[in-house]
């Protein structure tokens, strides 16, 4: 049996007023696959993954998650969002709740899980991101790296089938980045399906099955990481990689 595609995007278009943010995007991600999306800022990478769980609505094309069509303003979007975990650039933890409550609110409110079961699940994931001793603290008491690891655990607590990462290390101090990437790599080894928007090219080389290069709202090039980094086919990708290495 061939693995069924978990996320299927075809002919996706999105406009902000008359600015075309995404144009004719088609992308299929299979179960267990790790896809890294890169490209210059403003190229639509974040917009693309935010369309998958409908934080942004699209105007044309179709998105299917686990076989279900995702439409803007649809009823029952919560059912799809529980299959899609998301990690944000700025963590977006709930600052008025303890770490533990941050993790349990999704399972309790969305999945109808009991409090005790949710706590056990949360502690398991906090252990996984090596933060369990902070469970009763509040997010502002944690460092940026710790907060981002908590955010990853919060998304995992929904036991999603695919994880979206929206520049998870861009807001972190350099010494915090390694810890977060390590957690993500462990997650990848455990077989999680991942779509990652990032500028961490080392991470992309080590983890990605495919690198998707975007520019001006279009997918310009898709290739395995080795091929992409050593021999990009398009000029735009060459230019982008050149700039990335130059700094």
């Amino acid at each position, binding site marked *: 049996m061939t693995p069924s595609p978990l996320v299927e995007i075809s002919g996706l278009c999105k406009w902000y007023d008359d600015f075309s943010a995404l144009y004719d995007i088609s992308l299929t991600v299979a179960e267990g696959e790790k896809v890294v999306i890169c490209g210059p800022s403003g190229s639509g990478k974040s917009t693309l993954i935010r369309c998958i769980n409908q934080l942004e609505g699209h105007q044309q094309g179709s998105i299917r998650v686990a076989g279900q069509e995702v439409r803007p303003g649809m009823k029952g979007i*919560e059912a799809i*969002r529980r299959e899609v975990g998301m990690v*944000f650039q700025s963590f977006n933890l*709930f600052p008025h709740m303890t770490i533990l409550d941050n993790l349990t609110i*999704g399972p309790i409110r969305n999945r109808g899980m009991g409090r005790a079961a949710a706590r056990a699940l949360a502690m398991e994931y906090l252990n996984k991101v090596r933060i369990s001793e902070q469970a009763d603290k509040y997010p*502002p008491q944690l460092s940026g790296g710790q907060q981002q690891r908590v955010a990853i655990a919060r998304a995992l607590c929904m036991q999603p089938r695919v994880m979206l990462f929206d520049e998870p290390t861009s807001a972190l101090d350099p010494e915090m980045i390694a810890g977060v990437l390590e957690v993500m790599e462990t997650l990848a080894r455990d077989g999680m399906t991942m779509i990652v928007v990032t500028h961490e090219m080392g991470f992309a080389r080590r983890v990605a099955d495919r690198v998707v290069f975007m520019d001006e709202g279009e997918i310009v090039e898709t290739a395995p990481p080795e091929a992409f980094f050593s021999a990009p086919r398009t000029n735009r990708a060459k230019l982008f990689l050149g700039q990335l290495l130059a700094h």
Partner: protein
Amino acid sequence: MTKALAVHRDRPPVGFNAWRSAGVAWQITQALLVFAVLGWLVWRGIDAMEYRWQWYRVEPFFYREIDGEIIWGPLVRGLILTIQIAALAGALAIVIGFLTALARLSGSFAGRVLAKVYLEAIRNTPLLVQLFLVYFVLAPIIGIDRFWAGVLCLALYEGSFAAEIIRGGLRGIDRGQYEAADAVGLSTWDKYRYIIVPQSMPLVLPPLTGLLISTIKHSAIVSVIALAELTTQGLNLVSNTFMAFEVWFIVAGIYLVLTVSLSFAVTLFEHYLNKPKR
């Protein structure tokens, strides 16, 4: 000349500072002087009118003791009614304000228009006229008595201000919080109930306290539909006893005590809310 550096970096200079203390003392003296002059002017004015103070007669305004039983006087009964009206109207105003704020922020065109019409209608007509409309037109139609007519009118009026306060509070929450709540699959109700509203409380509470205080003050207007609240009782007492100075000083004092203690209580509550944050 360079300033001498503090000797211990880990110990900020504290203790008595003659110049600063002198400054504070002078400011207090100034304030006392202003109050003294104002007080003297009032006292002279009243004295010149040859007003006969009759403070000894005010006790029965509050209570009377007959056969060892305490009978509450008109001012206490009026105060209780004022508190009832203001509490009900305030609570209702917050509910109305919340619904209106959500309607204004919602994607529904009808909701936005309805909220906007309500806000403009309430804000751009006099409260007194609204009261007459509610009491003479709306109340007979929906069959409510003058008490509920008064409460409803105040609630509608204050609700329009609550709506803007609450809308500001909800918009003051970072977009990322809404998105994170969506991303963990919370329903719209859960998102507001657990994530957005608790966080907007510290933003909304101070202006909402101001709103409750003005509800108490504006409740005086229902005296025109003969609801026997504090101001109505004051009017009656004045017409019965002609003790206008005493009665209105007392009535104003009662309102003052009520509003100041309310804002004090809310300050304590805010303290409690902010505690576990950090």
